[in-house]
């Protein structure tokens, strides 16, 4: 179900997907955003009440001009959780969303009941530089994001519309999303989370695709060594887009941890 939520007297208007019922689960999407077809969210909705908001600047959500940095972003999620009357929830964040989920939990450690960081951004190792997704051409994106770039899903992901109107719409939406993401990721996706991660007190699962070519799986250790009570799990035959590429294994891992 698609809903709209107004925050702070209209400062933000948030387009949100809601699924299922049960224990609340806030999903924080990555730099690419939600696609409108995100089957793993429905699957998680079978056991949870899933809230998946579009971040300001994504989809129809507005208010990105009020967010300058990760601190503003984390406080935005705190406000949204209060508004949704779920001051504490399970929080699952993917990629840039994992970075923001960690900030949400670090800045107020009562927010995350349990935390799942899925191939999170937010750290940087000089000896393992993360490829520059912002400079990648469209046809270079799918190979970076998927274990199997030849699969129909990866092909659809990298498809370039032939219709001019559709192409323009896609281009404009990409610009909106990535320019918002640039506030947290450009030019290097390190905004000091490594200093703050110790404040995360909730049980934390760090989940990674074994063949992630964007953020190498060895980055998991950067999180687990800083977050007490965290553990790492790797999913086989999955790239950076593991919730999409290995939906079943992904949902099983998340549900198993949240149970």
């Amino acid at each position, binding site marked *: 179900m698609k809903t709209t939520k107004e925050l702070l007297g209209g400062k933000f208007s948030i387009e949100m997907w809601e699924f299922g019922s049960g224990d609340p689960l806030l999903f924080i999407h990555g730099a690419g955003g939600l696609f409108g077809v995100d089957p793993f969210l429905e699957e998680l909705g079978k056991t949870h009440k899933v809230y998946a908001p579009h971040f300001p600047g994504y989809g129809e959500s507005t208010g*990105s001009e009020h967010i300058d940095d990760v601190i503003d972003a984390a406080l935005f999620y705190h406000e949204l959780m209060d508004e949704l009357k779920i001051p504490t929830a399970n929080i699952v964040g993917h990629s840039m969303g994992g970075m923001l989920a960690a900030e949400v939990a670090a800045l107020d450690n009562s927010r995350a009941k349990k935390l799942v960081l899925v191939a999170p951004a937010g750290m940087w190792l000089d000896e393992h530089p993360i490829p520059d997704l912002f*400079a*990648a051409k469209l046809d270079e994106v799918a190979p970076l994001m998927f274990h199997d770039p030849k699969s129909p899903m990866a092909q659809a992901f990298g498809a370039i519309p032939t219709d001019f109107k559709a192409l323009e719409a896609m281009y404009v939406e990409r*610009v909106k999303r990535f*320019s*918002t993401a*640039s506030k947290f990721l*450009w*030019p290097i996706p390190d905004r000091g989370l490594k200093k703050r991660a110790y404040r995360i007190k909730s049980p934390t699962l760090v989940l990674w695709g074994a063949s992630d070519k964007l953020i190498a799986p060895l980055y998991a250790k950067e999180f687990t060594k800083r977050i007490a009570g965290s553990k790492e799990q790797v999913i086989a035959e999955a790239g950076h887009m593991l919730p999409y590429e290995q939906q079943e294994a992904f949902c099983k891992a998340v549900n198993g941890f949240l149970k």
Partner: protein
Amino acid sequence: MKFTWFHLMPYRYLPEDFKEKYRSVWVDIPQNLYDPTVGHRLYNDYLDQLEFADQMGYDGLGINEHHQNAYGMMPSPNLMGAALARRTRNADIVVLGNSIALYNPPIRVAEEFAMLDVISGGRLRAGFPVGTSMDTNFCYGEVPATLREKYYEAHELIMKAWAEKEMFAFNGKYTKLRYVNLWPKPIQQPHPPIWIPGGGSVETWDFCAKHDYNYSFLSYFGYIAGKKVADGYWETMAKLGKPLNPYSMGFAQVVAVAETDEQAERDYAPHMDYFYNRCLHVYDGFADAPGYRTVKTIKAGILGQVGDQAALRREGLKWKDFLEQGYVIAGSPKTVRERLREAMKSLNCGHLMMLMQLGSMPPELVKKSTELFARECMPYLRDLWSDHEDKWSAKPMNVEARAIPAPVQFELQLPKHTNGHARTNGATESRSAK
């Protein structure tokens, strides 16, 4: 009509197979293609060329800022401006310009531009570009989403620093300064003429109109393709009720003059090919970081200067096509002056920014083209727009009041000692003895 001789300062010796072998002339171009001793020769040749243009009566000497780029070797145009301030006498020094969001704090630009204006006796035109995406986002790491906001704030600070007579505090979002107290201040009061070079962002038109700045469209596509942008600018001006003064607009155009049309092709075609195929070979992923151009500009359908789309438009073009499509205005003096008159009239443009050293072009050809144009084209075009006031050229001190640099003497006036002991004078010795 006013003429600015504009130098990009390209590296002239990129390999034959550059385009096939490397993905970009900009940002990640391999460092092993650069030879500093070649660079030494090139900088000095290029300064010679600008100085020659001064002597030939061009109104302005144009320089600009690029980073990690083999077609533009001026990370700091202000250094070149300083060299020109001392070795030229007549022309404006047109720094187009400093990408003000990149200077921390941006007050640095107010200071250096003031220095250039003071050294040159008030000959500076001060350019404030946003800067290309390659320069600002990729080379200097600026966040695309906030680049323009930072630019506007830097502009506010610089203009205020020039205008205010007393010290003030500046509490910006990106720059916070307790003591803004510019010293020195520019000769031209309240400030040098402001030029805003643009690649076609629609916001820039509003900005120029609002402040009465010159808008310079720095295109490499020539006057025919550039007309869409020029028209957009004039429409904005008209909508805002601003005068349509041709001198409020500059336009960059490749120009090359030879004895005949045929000679022009023989002389310049290979260098044009070098320029368009090697100098402008920019990896598409660097052309336009997401958020660099606003959604409004993207929807206006203005194509970028570099990247795949731009390369596609140039694909397979020959000398004849480059001339016909207006990328290049070249030929005999008669051909060039006639085409230029038509071009500048169609754009309603009073400030021609002339790209006369193109790609791999050697000094002797640059000199020939520069001189032929000055002698046989410029006088025939001077009358254009004479009924309009040019408010965007520099207003220098009276020439009699300006300092004249001492003539250069390259011979040593004192013998040079090779013996280390002999070079150490008494004062140094007593200091080090303490």
